[in-house]
């Protein structure tokens, strides 16, 4: 029997039912799986459905949103049937999540120690003293100096990088199998970004977690991810191993993203851009969702949305341009 993936998501669809009767298809048929110890990155512009995918996995979608379809399995265990109460046992314990804004992700009125020990006491049923000791240990693990003092301090006394470290400490406190990081470094300085990402990888190795990294930064991806999913308009448009994706970029959207990155070895005056904006999720073009912005758009693209097809080993693309590629080779 095949070894269970840590996370298996099949045909996830999360729709938001707007007041005016429109339906925003924020996530529309996303399938992904993460093996133990793997780092998978989801890349895409703002509004492409990355964060909603992550929140759907945690089952933290609030009204008017709803997961309308899809199977989410954690370690081979179906999560659809679980009650809200069972989910609170899983969140933090089996899956943990780190958010984008370390500035607001900690409760301003409690000490750092208070917030970490609360999780330990709830999920691990530790007593106060043990939890305190563990909290100090965790803070040291994530590279916070003076941990004994920091646990008595409040979030407003820490810098952004420190807070994000605290968030990581909280996330790993119950040894989750899967850590979801939703743009964990977007709000931080570039130098701190590298530290935090290194730290997350280190923690991943140390605690044998799988990591789902959500980002819009291809630079981050190239350095840290094993596999990349590129999302556009709530769908995966390209999916491959990191090296493969960066070397043999297929989808016009991914190519656009690549061109918009500054490169050290080339001297260009203007960086490439992808013209236009992500169409709103309640008003996608009829055919391919990227057709309105695609430089290689064909008539076909405006009528039918291509399927995600495997054009090379482990390299999937959703584009009409490559539809016959598999047959030709």
């Amino acid at each position: 029997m095949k070894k269970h993936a840590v996370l298996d998501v099949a045909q996830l669809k999360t729709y938001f039912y707007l007041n005016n009767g429109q339906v925003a298809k924020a996530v529309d048929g996303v399938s992904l799986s993460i093996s133990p110890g793997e780092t998978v990155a989801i890349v895409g512009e703002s509004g492409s459905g990355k964060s909603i995918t992550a929140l759907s996995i945690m089952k933290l979608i609030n009204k008017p949103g709803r997961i309308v379809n899809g199977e989410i399995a954690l370690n081979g265990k179906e999560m659809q049937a679980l009650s809200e109460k069972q989910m609170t046992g899983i969140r933090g314990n089996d899956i943990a999540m780190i958010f984008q804004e370390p500035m607001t992700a900690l409760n301003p009125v409690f000490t750092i120690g208070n917030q970490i020990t609360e999780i330990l006491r709830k999920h691990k049923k530790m007593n106060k003293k043990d939890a305190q000791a563990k909290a100090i240990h965790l803070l040291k693990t994530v590279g916070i100096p003076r941990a004994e003092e920091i646990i008595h301090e409040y979030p407003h006394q820490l810098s952004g990088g420190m807070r994000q470290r605290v968030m990581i400490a909280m996330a790993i406190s119950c040894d989750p199998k899967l850590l979801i990081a939703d743009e964990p470094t977007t709000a931080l300085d570039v130098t701190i970004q590298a530290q935090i990402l290194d730290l997350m990888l280190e923690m991943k190795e140390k605690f044998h977690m799988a990591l789902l990294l959500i980002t819009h930064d291809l630079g981050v991806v190239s350095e840290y991810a094993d596999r990349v999913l590129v999302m556009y308009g709530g769908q995966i448009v390209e999916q491959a191993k990191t090296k493969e994706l960066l070397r043999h970029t297929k989808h016009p959207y991914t190519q656009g993203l690549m061109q918009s990155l500054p490169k050290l070895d080339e001297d260009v005056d203007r960086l490439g851009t992808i013209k236009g904006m992500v169409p709103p999720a309640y008003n996608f073009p009829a055919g391919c969702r990227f057709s309105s912005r695609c430089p290689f758009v064909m008539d076909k693209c405006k009528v039918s949305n291509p399927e995600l097809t495997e054009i090379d080993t482990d390299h999937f693309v959703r584009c009409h341009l490559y539809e016959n590629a598999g047959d030709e080779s």
Partner: protein
Amino acid sequence: MTTKTDETIYNQPDKNNSMEKNKSPFQIAMHRFTRNKMAVISVFVLLAIIIICILAPVFTDINPEETNLLLIEKGPSEEHILGTNGLGQDNFSRLLYGGRISLIVGFSAMFFTLVIGVLLGSLAGYYGGKIDNIIMRATDIMLMLPFLVLVLTIMAIVDKVTIGLFVSIIALTSWPNLTRIIRGSYLSLREQEFILSAQAIGASDFRIIAKHFIPNAIGPIVVNATLMMATYIIIESALSFIGFGIPQPTPTWGNMISEAQNIRILRNNPEAWIPPGLGILITVLAINFIGDGLRDAFDPRSNQR
């Protein structure tokens, strides 16, 4: 490699900031509160009034409800410092015991309004949707009814108004304002990432409300509770004054002033109605100053003060 820069930066003792070091936002607010002189004086004044009222038996051994028909509307004397009223009851004793009732009514009405308001506001603000809709429509209906007329009607129907009944009537009719305020602050808190973060870490609804919402909304809650208490003391006096409050012979400040409706007493016996009037004035003023001080202390924009 990852920690080196941090270590050098964070190991430096933070001398400038040592004043605010390790203080919870609540402690910082209290620190700011102590800088408001009027508010601090008011705290002492209010405490003094409370202590005097609690220790009423120490200051006088006359029963405030005891009537003496031989001593009606007498002026101040050695035995009756503030004279007696139309039933020959001792005014001084009634002033102290009446203060007890007024403060108890104000405090307990505030407490129960707080319980109802926080509970409903929390449910509405946290869950939103249908629950929010039901609760907010209920508050709309309650706010639609004119408060005074409603209270007067209830008081008129009920045979004997006791303190407990009086408090529950006030609490049951005046929760909507607080509910709205709490719901409002929850709506803005709900968008904060630490709430999502708490959910993601597996906190239950109850825990999120108790540990994340209420402590963060404590500012508006405390401020409104204080101001509410002042209002309720006034309401008690006003209703007693027009005869719809706590009935005689129980002394309250409002009851004492209502005796001044008699023009003879108003003119000839100022010692009978000025003290309870001052009692109400000073108490309410003190509470309002405390409320103002708390509002400034909790308002993040008044940081510079």
